[in-house]
């Protein structure tokens, strides 16, 4: 239900990282999305499209990698501590422009 806020934060993070890497258009963005989070991928994709409008992330492809729930319990149920499945984590982005040579951040 808070996908719009999540999408806005994603665009902010992506734009800041792109600017730090020399700028350029963002082609794609990879997100790790745990199945235990309360974020709906389709709603997020739509919110991202809107949030990216008018920015270097406009039109960027959002690749969502689902992270299935894994808990630290061997009992077969989901009672243990969450090892994986709560991620809402930006992994990488692809920039259209190559890094300008000679300037290392």
């Amino acid at each position, binding site marked *: *239900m*808070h996908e719009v*806020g*999540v999408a806005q*934060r*994603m665009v902010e*993070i*992506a734009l800041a*990282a*792109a600017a730090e*890497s020399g700028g*350029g258009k963002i*082609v*794609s963005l990879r*997100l790790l999305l745990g199945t*235990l*989070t*309360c*974020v709906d991928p389709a709603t997020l994709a739509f919110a991202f499209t809107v949030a990216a409008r008018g920015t270097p992330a406009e039109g960027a492809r959002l690749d969502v990698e689902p992270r299935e729930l894994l808990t630290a319990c061997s009992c077969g*149920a*989901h*009672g243990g501590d*969450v090892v994986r499945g709560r*991620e*809402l*984590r*930006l*992994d*990488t*982005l*692809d*920039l*259209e*422009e*190559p*890094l300008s040579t000679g300037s290392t951040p």
Partner: protein
Amino acid sequence: MTTEVTLAQDVLHDNARDAEANRARFRAAGVYVLNLMSAPGAGKTTLLERTVEALKGKLRLAVITGDIATTRDADRLAAHGARVVQLNTGGACHIEAHQIEQAARPFALDALDLLLIENIGNLVCPAEFDLGEHDKVMIYSCTEGHDKPAKYPLMFKEAKALLLNKIDLLPYTNFDVDAALADARALNPAVEVFQLSATQGTGFGAWLGWLENRVAARRS
């Protein structure tokens, strides 16, 4: 040609940072903080009214009550003599940590034993946002149906205690207590369960005892 840039950033990083700051502040002040979450209409405010009334004179407590709009909950709780701040999110489906930092400003935290946060009525989003509380408590009313743990696993998984409310209405529903609690415990084997009725006061002794123990453990 494209260039890959590593981000490795949690999208909710800002909230996690604010929550840690809150937690440090609460710890330094020695105040025990609970985040109460439930669906709308599960009985959070009624439960808080009875809790505040019962703890009057025993614990120094304050309440931050969150709603999308209105000060109705704050008015109800203030009528019981509670120090209360109403937080209006203006449409947002959950409370975030920075809002708690602001809402708690009027309170002298080191003069409090217990701070109760009544989250927005919503089974989905509040579970995702750490506020810096010590424990999360979920209120789950039997009129909601016994399928909710399976449908909304995150909140049931995050809860330290589960308050099964409105048990006085059980005879009028087809709610299966055993099935609901089995599903909740499959997600969260350590969860403390209290069956109670906030309107009738049934089962309140055990809940209040647990709460007072948690506060005492924080103080020592």
